[in-house]
């Protein structure tokens, strides 16, 4: 079944004409029809449009186009519902966008299309990417393919579940405080958050502009390297994108990591760390030592302040970004006798509970008399957190941690306690505040039930090449990524 292949595996099959892009796309659509009724990774998808793109890819292949020229030619890739795809609906998992249809492509979508990808589907997410479980979507919860009673993580839960369930070859998600790495860990796939500024955010609906990055979900590390190479680069339409050359990320995947130094932050041995997660990560550390890496204990002394810092900066930026959803230019409108009443009613009816909570918190920390005490202070603590990492990277090439303190939790388990939900992001949040790159890859399973465990690697700013090399060496010598969930039709 071509939908079970990796991106590089399908590219090779397409090149040999073992399979056509139409057959591969149809296999994804068949898998969605078979399993997505239970998983609900997709809010919606346009099968006819995907097949039309596949036919165009088959024509290009027949005319002699190669994957050397177009690395994603004929590869079906699904998209989180927060990225603009021209002519496709965009809801951000919210009611407030109504029947919005994107008038243009995000830069990453342009790049994927130029590389030949079949871009399809709208993947479920926490509303406006605010959440860690994909329970905050206006379009229903997404379930973890490994255990349907559990959450897939979030906010990019649909992106992770769709890759884990072989409903697409790869997907795109976004990561503001862990929203790629955490669901990748909980669903057993590879997820990468690039360095801030590595990938253009043009066409991404902003949540927290100084933290958001777009990144890939894939079935192995090589595919993440391929996709990142296509997505990266400076963009005149995003003035925060950084003019840094884009290397060939697959070139460094040699398996040889001898002499590289990996740091273990002592602050990450927290009380809430599940013993099975700890055991899996400890085993990964031993494995790295056997591969010839040098393991070094390091300190990131401001770790304990990261979540508080994050929930000030992220909510403050969100409260400003979400001001644009006011019922005037697009989306839902609840009429009012004057503009203020229209705004209040539209926003009250259109936003869900978590988004309202964050808008109120963000508005409060920016309001007159509180800005310096909260927002400015948080930006200063952010500097301290970033300096911790830059200092650590003077002695190590990458940092190893668990991606999450526990495996996937039950649906509903934390949905009434926002603070507990926020605290589950403890290992992923610092990376966004520091603006560095990070990824999660599978490193084992819990016993009963059998749930994936993620290993997080954190790298230097623009250190994706080294990070991918380190991840690839572990993956290829262990093979956890080849395990698949058992899915029954329904």
């Amino acid at each position, binding site marked *: 079944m071509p939908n079970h292949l990796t991106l590089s595996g399908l590219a090779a099959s397409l090149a040999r004409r073992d399979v056509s892009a139409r057959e591969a796309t149809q296999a994804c659509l068949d898998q969605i029809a078979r399993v997505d009724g239970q998983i609900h990774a997709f809010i919606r998808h346009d099968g006819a449009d995907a097949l039309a793109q596949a036919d165009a890819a088959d024509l290009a292949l027949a005319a002699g186009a190669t994957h050397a020229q177009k690395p994603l030619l004929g590869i079906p890739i699904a998209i989180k519902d927060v990225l603009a795809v021209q002519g496709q609906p965009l809801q951000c998992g919210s009611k407030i966008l109504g*029947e919005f249809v994107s008038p243009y492509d995000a830069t990453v979508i342009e790049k994927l299309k130029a590389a030949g990808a079949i871009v399809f589907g709208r993947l479920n997410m926490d509303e406006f990417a605010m959440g860690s479980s994909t329970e905050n979507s206006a379009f229903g919860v997404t379930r973890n393919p490994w255990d349907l009673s559990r959450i897939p993580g979030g906010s990019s839960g649909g992106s992770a579940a769709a890759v884990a369930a072989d409903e697409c070859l790869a997907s795109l998600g976004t990561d503001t405080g862990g929203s790629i790495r955490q669901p990748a860990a909980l669903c057993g796939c590879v997820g990468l958050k690039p360095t801030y*500024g590595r990938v253009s955010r043009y066409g991404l609906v902003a949540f927290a502009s100084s933290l958001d990055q777009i990144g890939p979900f894939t079935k192995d590390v090589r595919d993440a390297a391929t996709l990142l190479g296509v997505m990266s680069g400076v963009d005149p339409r995003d003035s925060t994108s950084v003019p840094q050359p884009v290397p060939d990320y697959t070139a460094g995947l040699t398996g040889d990591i001898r002499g590289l130094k990996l740091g273990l932050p002592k602050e990450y041995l927290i009380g809430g760390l599940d013993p099975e997660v700890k055991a899996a990560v400890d085993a990964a550390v031993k494995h790295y030592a056997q591969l010839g890496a040098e393991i070094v204990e390091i300190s990131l002394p401001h770790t304990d302040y990261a979540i508080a810092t994050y929930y000030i900066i992220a909510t403050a930026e969100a409260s400003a970004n979400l001001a644009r959803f006011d019922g005037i230019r697009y989306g839902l409108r609840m009429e009012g006798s004057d503009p203020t009443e229209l705004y209040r009613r539209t926003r009250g009816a259109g936003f869900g509970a978590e988004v309202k909570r964050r808008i109120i918190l963000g508005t409060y920390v920016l309001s007159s008399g509180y800005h310096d005490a909260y927002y400015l202070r948080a930006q200063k603590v952010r500097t301290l957190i970033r300096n911790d990492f830059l200092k650590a990277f003077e002695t190590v090439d990458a940092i190893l941690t668990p991606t999450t303190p526990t495996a996937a939790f039950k649906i509903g388990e934390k949905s009434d306690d926002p603070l507990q939900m926020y605290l589950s992001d403890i290992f992923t949040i610092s990376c966004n505040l520091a603006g560095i790159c990070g990824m999660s890859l599978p490193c084992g399973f819990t016993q009963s039930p059998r749930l994936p465990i993620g290993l997080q690697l954190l790298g230097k700013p623009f250190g994706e090449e080294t990070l991918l090399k380190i991840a690839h060496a572990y993956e290829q010598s262990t093979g956890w990524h080849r395990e698949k969930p058992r899915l029954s039709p329904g």
Partner: protein
Amino acid sequence: MAAAEINVQYVANLARLALTPDEEKKLSAQLGGILGYIEKLKELDVTGVEPTAHAVPLVNVTRADEVRPSLSHEDALRNAPRQAGGLFLVPKIVE
């Protein structure tokens, strides 16, 4: 350290967000807990520390002042909830 109280009604008005009395009550309790947690930042001495706005410092990002393609009038209005005569329609603003 005692958390500051959020006057949810006042802040919701700043945010142009209509809340039901039930939502106000629930938010008030939850935000009290979250603010209490956030108070821990006050333990740190940040004297002389520069704030971080962009993790990778960039300065003076400019571009040439050239006419470039942008959304057509029609595309810009396509998602409007109400429009008339090529304009977004809004409630009366000035008496």
